[in-house]
């Protein structure tokens, strides 16, 4: 960490006109600590995780290689199928409203409206707070007997609903909470997208007599295509990571109606100690995010390129 570590070419620097050939060996020393941590705690675990996924490993015995048996079991595991289905439903029902509401709010906040600094902060604050904390708050809101939601609908003569304890409503209750939590993220990204649209486009459209509505559909929406795609990809990846709200609010129930992929990994790995089987689930999760990321690389960049033209 001392300057003396540097074996590079300060003294030659003056005599040699070009330093292109010189090698900064100090670079290895500066990368080493960060890279080592990355290598030990991300890279190696990924490789080891792949290996575990081919083993029968219950944590107390040594891993026993069993080939593709874990993956074969996954295909027949109704509970994992249910978790996949739930995760998909969760993704669908959180992402679509989020895109829609986030765009509308961003457009509103992009104008010179009264109180927009306050609004921006209020909409974004749920995103800053922990999922554990907001899960607690929403548990209270959804509480069947005393919660404010059932007290409110009672005013309209609706009977109390067992929001989180009814298999038909539990996932939707989790979804509503999650939309509330992450709406601010979508809004901020859209806001950044809106601000990168050149104002000359709107001026030209205005000259041509296009209405605000027309401008929105003919300029704003098309110009925001890369932003929308980016949010879509990010939200998809995040949806597959859903765990905390499910573990805290419903523990996957009732009747497994809210269990998700990561929740299954957690249960199989850390409650049943089926480390090999849970690892296979984790690898499936990795492959899904990998595919989404690769789609992003392929089409996300293309979208950007088209935009520059």
């Amino acid at each position, binding site marked *: 960490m001392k300057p003396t570590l540097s074996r590079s070419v300060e003294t030659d620097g003056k005599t040699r006109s070009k330093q292109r050939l010189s090698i900064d060996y100090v670079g*290895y020393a500066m990368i080493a600590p960060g890279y080592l941590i990355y290598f030990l705690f991300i890279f190696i675990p*990924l490789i080891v995780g792949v290996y575990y996924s081919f083993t029968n490993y219950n944590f107390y015995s040594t891993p026993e290689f069993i080939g593709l048996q874990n993956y074969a079991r996954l295909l027949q595991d109704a509970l994992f199928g249910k978790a996949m289905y739930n995760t998909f439903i969760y993704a669908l029902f959180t992402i679509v409203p989020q895109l829609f509401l986030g765009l509308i709010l961003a457009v509103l906040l992009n104008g010179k409206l*009264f109180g927009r600094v*306050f609004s921006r902060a209020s909409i974004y604050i749920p995103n*800053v707070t922990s999922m554990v904390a907001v899960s607690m708050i929403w548990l209270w809101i959804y509480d069947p007997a005393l919660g404010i939601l059932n007290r409110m609908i009672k005013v309209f003569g609706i009977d109390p609903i067992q929001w989180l304890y009814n298999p038909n409503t539990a996932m939707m209750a989790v979804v509503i909470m999650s939309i509330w939590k992450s709406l601010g993220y979508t809004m901020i990204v859209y806001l950044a997208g809106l601000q990168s649209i050149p104002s000359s486009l709107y001026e030209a459209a205005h000259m041509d007599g296009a209405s605000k509505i027309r401008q929105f559909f003919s300029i704003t929406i098309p110009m925001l295509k890369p932003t929308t795609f980016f949010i879509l990809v990010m939200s998809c990846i995040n949806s597959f990571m859903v765990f905390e709200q499910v573990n805290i609010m419903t523990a996957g129930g009732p009747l497994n109606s809210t269990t998700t992929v990561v929740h299954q990994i957690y249960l199989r790995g850390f409650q049943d100690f089926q480390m090999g089987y849970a690892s296979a689930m*984790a690898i499936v999760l990795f492959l899904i995010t990998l595919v989404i990321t690769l789609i992003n690389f392929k089409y996300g960049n293309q979208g950007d390129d088209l935009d520059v033209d």
Partner: protein
Amino acid sequence: MGKLSSRNMGLVVMSVVLLAVSLVMLAPFLIMVLTSFKTMGEIQSPTFSLFPKVWHFDNYAEALSRGDWLKYFYNSFVVTIITVVVSLVLNSMAGYSFARLKFPGRDILFFSVLIGIMVPAQTTMIPTFLMMKQFPLAGGNNLFGQDGIGFINSYTGLILPFIAGSFGIFLCRQFFLNFPRALDEASQIDGASKFRVFYQIYLPLSKPILATLAIFKTTSAWNDYMWPLIMTNTEGMRTVQLGLTIFRGETNVEWNLLMAATTLVVLPLVVLFLAAQKYFVQGIVTTGLKA
């Protein structure tokens, strides 16, 4: 004139809509704070009022006495602060090297770091847990990682996996790539070593990216639930997020106390957010990743 006023009317209507949305977004937090001052008697009463009849500030003291909250807060602060400080140092150093220095194998090393961006933490969690448990010579383990608990129930276990990674290194590298070449050349002619160039010239100029990374790390360390849940199993090593779940375990949840504790856990980040909004937003906008 008529046209102007209808335009103004539109602005007023939209402002009102926006304000209503803001209130809806804040409502859960308002409910949290208002509930935290009520008595259980008032909460259970059939007649409902939003505001507490009498404000019970002692709920907070009562909530903190349910569990070793002093310890949870201490643990969360220690984990957060160390994670932030060390990760800033390691990530910026590696990012600078990848962006500004030339040495054999640099691009391959960087490519291998990039792979990590695509790996969700949930995928590596089981092997990482097992590695922590079986870390040689840690926590009573022998050379082969047996017989002890390794880094389970330790700050090291809570901190180590998060102090460097693809995201931070990538973020810093992209930032340092934008500096003009002339900066290096000028300092080189003055005879400064590469490391000195880094910490005397580059670091002072990289406050915005360091602030963004610091905010990102603070939020994720303070709010983390899954890793502490797996890594710790004793009261003394719990973090605030795990502390909240104690109340959930009870059969009859004392909502007023739970909401008081939740308020305290949420407060530090809300204050930080209000003080450093710019960097939160910048973090989202410039990185987009992993929010």
